């Protein structure tokens, strides 16, 4: 797909609503659901949207742009102005208890147009829903809940994007459901999808990399290993305490057979993640975090440059400090925040020296964010990051500022 396609699609979609320019009141804004019975798994549908008259289609999306000035060990690429992405949502209720939502992302820097989510949901019972199509695998918390305007930080978490492959979606089917009683909620998801390929350990990152498999768009047509990638998650939420999720994603990743011939041993990837979200009611301090473990079956004859274990995660702490009318915006919020991140890309010891392999990164990112409305955020981040190579040599020190805006529209 090309940017030309994007332009045509965007113009066609927006021109449909052109009359709304004459009378803006015709275009109704449906805000995201603020009911307490919302869990992380609901992030896909819990987005603001625009609705036109009685048309059974809602349109939404978000946009992200930012400025960065970062440097590593005294060397900077200078002032960078980045248009990260434009994402469009189109959703509709097809009939009673059958709905559809699609999320299409345009990332001009990568010349990429990606369908991140496009699935039909059929509800048989609140505890039994069928979902089929292009599915966002529910591993951890971030992958499903990745919309820029929801976060106080410009960059996505390192562990979610460079260890786990957010945003990671695949063709497939599965079930999900929710049950709630008083303050308690329970949710589950279970999907079988297409999955990874050999690029996990054969890539130009020179390390085990689940995100490298994102490059392979053929996975939407042909599952490399021929075996399903199973993704499952259970989550429990207490409205007064918070939400905890446990998730798993795994399956064979390599093409171990073709045309009836055995080409290689079957090699598996397994990912386990735990995520949490809570708020201290007294101070309104929000915590959201995720920690994941990745296990990859790497051939013993391969280079230890490619590790068979990875681990990492992030913790966001967000403290609202002002919540009132600021510069004429009612109910605007000023937050102080900080993100703590760590990833060990290669957990293990060198065969030769029995000493620990490094290849890790940690980062601290204090931030100020200003939300003139719940759907728009201005963010100012300062990153401090140290990254060590495989051998554990003196780390590369990175620091710098980012300023950006992200908003639903």
């Amino acid at each position: 797909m090309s940017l030309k396609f994007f332009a045509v699609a965007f113009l066609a979609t927006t021109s449909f609503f052109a009359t709304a320019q004459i009378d803006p009141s015709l275009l109704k804004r449906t805000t995201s659901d603020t009911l307490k019975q919302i869990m992380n798994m609901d992030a896909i549908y819990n987005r603001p949207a625009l609705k036109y008259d009685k048309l059974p289609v809602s349109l939404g999306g978000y946009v992200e742009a930012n400025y960065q000035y970062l440097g590593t060990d005294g060397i900077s690429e200078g002032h960078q102005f980045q248009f990260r992405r434009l994402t469009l949502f189109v959703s509709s209720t097809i009939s009673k208890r059958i709905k559809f939502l699609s999320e299409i992302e345009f990332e001009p820097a990568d010349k990429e147009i990606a369908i991140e989510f496009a699935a039909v949901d059929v509800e048989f019972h609140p505890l039994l829903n069928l979902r089929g199509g292009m599915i966002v695998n529910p591993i951890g918390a971030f992958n499903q809940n990745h919309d820029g305007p929801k976060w106080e930080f410009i960059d996505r978490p390192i562990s979610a994007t460079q260890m786990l492959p957010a945003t990671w979606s695949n063709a497939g089917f599965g079930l999900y459901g929710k049950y709630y009683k008083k303050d308690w909620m329970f949710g589950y998801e279970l999907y079988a999808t297409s999955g990874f390929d050999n690029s996990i350990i054969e890539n130009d990152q020179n390390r085990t990399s689940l995100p490298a498999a994102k490059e392979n768009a053929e996975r939407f047509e042909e599952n490399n290993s021929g075996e399903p990638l199973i993704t499952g998650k259970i989550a429990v939420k207490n409205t007064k305490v918070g939400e905890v999720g446990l998730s798993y994603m795994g399956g064979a990743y390599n093409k171990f057979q073709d045309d009836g011939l055995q080409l290689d041993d079957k090699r598996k990837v397994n990912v386990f993640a735990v995520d949490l979200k809570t708020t201290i009611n007294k101070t309104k301090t929000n915590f959201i975090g995720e920690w994941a473990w990745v296990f990859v079956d790497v051939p013993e004859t391969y280079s230890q440059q490619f590790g068979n274990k990875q681990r990492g995660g992030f913790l966001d702490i967000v403290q609202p400090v002002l919540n009132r009318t600021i510069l004429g915006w009612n109910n605007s919020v000023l937050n102080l925040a900080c993100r703590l991140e760590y990833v060990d890309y290669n957990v293990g010891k060198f065969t030769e020296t029995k000493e620990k392999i490094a290849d890790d990164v940690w980062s601290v990112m204090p931030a100020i964010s200003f939300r003139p409305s719940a759907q728009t955020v201005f963010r100012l981040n300062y990153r401090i990051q140290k990254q060590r190579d495989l051998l554990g040599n003196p780390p590369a020190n990175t620091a710098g500022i980012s300023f950006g805006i992200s908003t639903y529209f």
Partner: protein
Amino acid sequence: MYKRYVLVITFLFLAVIFTVSCEKILPPSPANDELLDGPVEGLTTAQAAQHHAGDVAFNDQVFTRETGLGPIFVATSCGSCHAGDGKGHPFSTLTRFGINDSLGRNEFDNGPQLQNRALPGYMPEQLPPGTPFASFTPPANTGLGFLELVSEDDLLAMAAANTTNPDGVRGHPNWSALPTFVSPNPNSYTQNGRYITRFGKKAATYNLFHQTVQAYNQDIGITSTFNPSDVYSHLDIDPEVSDKIVRDVIFYLQTLKAPIQRNQSDPDVIQGGALFAQVGCESCHKQTLTTGFSPVEALSNKQFHPYTDLLLHDMGPGLDDGLIEGTSKTSEWRTPPLWGLGLSKNSQGGKYFLLHDGRAKSIDEAIQLHGGEAATAKNKFNALKAAERQQLIKYLESL
């Protein structure tokens, strides 16, 4: 309304302050003498651009199955073995094996380097039982362009001077047969069809072109127009790296700066330098050499301080691994340059792995493992007082 103006003006003021102070918030560069990488001073803009292109190819280009890696290999990229252009780690140590005959036959035919790693589905090479072998820890790349430009006349003159060395130092050049892709310089000396070679642990490599093409082929399994032989099939195949990239990498290696000595005014370092000469280390670890002419002005006719004579020396039975390359004996090794020695730990994971195979975990241990022609110098070192030995080691760490 007044409050809003104040807020807007404050915001604009902070934005200006923030922008102006941008550079202050970035982490500082390490001192130039704390780094081994970086270009030699005085490159033209065109030369700097080629150095940068070579830097990217050397440090960032990671080969995969799709781009030619293997299928059997030692490493996936140049930078995997030369972190920060410094010495390597036991993880990236390679294995050379076999004994070439006196005519040098089999020297360049599909080996003699063990391909100890393999892509999924393939098996790596196994060392033939009973075969002599030696492990080679990757050397530092820094200052290679200067070493390449030392004239053969200077090498032969140093070898000639050794014949009367009272400590028994008898260093001599390695004379090696050259692979067909290496064109010797017109004024190179020959001996029975062999040429003076100077790079590598056994000084069996003629120049940086030879070294680079061989490393692509033997270390990563990457064929080029210069050496199209595949290490797995032993057949000529299409080139997997372009001529331009090979030449950019060669230029990058040629134009890496020479390491800069640190703590030069420290009294212990000064005294250590005097002891270095007094003990006789300098018989092999020559402090000062001179380059010949180079079209790269920054390298041409320059004095530099590598602490090597680029000659082979018999290091005694303790370092005899049974491997020969070119006309070297099994116990002979090229004098390794000592420049950058004190920074080795920064590329070796915080520890020293010294000598040809990294067996020495400290400078003192490396000295104690010297034998053969270096035995006299080692004994003189051991005869020093403890404080003097520390001064000498401090001097070596300043290099």
